[in-house]
């Protein structure tokens, strides 16, 4: 199962959701697979922060569906967030874990999921995220996306994807600061709120 094909499938289901995503090849793939979600996606470059940031966003905007596009390496960096989600039970958070069993952005050394013994969905369930599943085909993945986007409990799907990246996709040129501003302005406009307003005159 290719990650890009899963992304295309997920992108077709998204309209006004907000997305937080992880580093590496998934950034450019998501940028290309979901062009209508570019401003609604916060592109991050950090292990361990993606799902916690998405959770914080979901807490702050409880009426809005938030999607976390995390990775096996990123989730393994901070498994504690699963326990926090298990206790907090955010009803509007859908977590996708792209599990390619490798640190792809640095050339592909294996993560702990490559052994076949570490089950991220199992860890999530044991942490109280009862709707935690593993998908091995695009059809399975699409079904979990539909369920996760409609769920009223935290929903997590581990997508067991291959290590290949789609060749020739468009690269994202912006850095973290520009991405933040674009995302914040999108949230401000779509929510009718001010997050980064004008300075005082004094």
């Amino acid at each position, binding site marked *: 199962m290719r990650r890009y094909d899963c992304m295309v499938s997920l992108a077709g289901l998204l309209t006004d959701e907000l997305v*937080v995503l992880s580093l590496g090849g998934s950034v450019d793939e998501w940028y290309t697979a979901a062009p209508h979600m570019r401003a609604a996606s*916060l592109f*991050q*470059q*950090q*292990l*361990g*922060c993606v799902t*916690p*940031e*998405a*959770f*914080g*966003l*979901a*807490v*702050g*905007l409880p009426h809005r569906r938030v999607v976390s596009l995390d990775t096996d390496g990123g989730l393994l960096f*901070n498994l*504690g*967030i699963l*326990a*926090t989600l298990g*206790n*907090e039970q955010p009803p509007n958070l859908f977590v996708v874990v792209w599990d390619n069993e490798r640190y792809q952005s640095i050339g592909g050394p294996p993560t702990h999921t490559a052994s076949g013994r570490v089950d991220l969905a199992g860890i999530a369930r044991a942490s109280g995220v009862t709707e935690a599943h593993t998908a091995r085909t695009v059809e399975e993945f699409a079904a979990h996306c539909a369920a996760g986007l409609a769920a009223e409990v935290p929903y997590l799907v581990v997508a067991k994807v291959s290590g290949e990246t789609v060749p020739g996709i468009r690269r994202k040129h912006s*850095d*973290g*600061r520009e*991405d*933040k501003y674009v*995302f*914040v302005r999108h*949230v*401000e406009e779509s*929510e009718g*709120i*001010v*997050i*980064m307003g004008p*300075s005082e005159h004094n």
Partner: protein
Amino acid sequence: MHDSAVGEVLAGLAQAGVSIACYLPDSLFKPLYPAMDAAPGLRTIRVTNEGEGAAICGGVFLSGRRAVLVMENSGLRASVEPLARMGLGAGIPVVMLMSYRGEMGENNWWAVPHGITMEPVLGALRIPYRVVRREQEIRQSIVDAYELAYSSYYHTAVALGGEIVR
């Protein structure tokens, strides 16, 4: 920590518009945590480590609401990676309120490293901070921390030490 100091913290957070508090409890702030849990208008989120709390606070910032990360100053060390990535890499601010373990008067050997490392780590991350040891300065210091964090879009910190926490 006296009830009056706890009250000043809650008043400062309310005045700063904070509605979400992430925390990993410690001993010096012991009475503060249940007080935050019980405070009207403040949602508390217990986290498994302070770095996770920092990342959650970053997400809250992006929603337009205001969060605080409350912890012992040892939690600063656990938070360095997300703080550096979010703050230096993207300009996503986190405001921290921490107890000052390891300063003059510390009587636990295990807390000595917290005092040695806190201010150099804050300096390495270029995080503006204020050490507060007088109860009457707590409230305004918290308000000031938010003013600067939301004009610089960078982290700020308030460390409570001295007789406030002992």
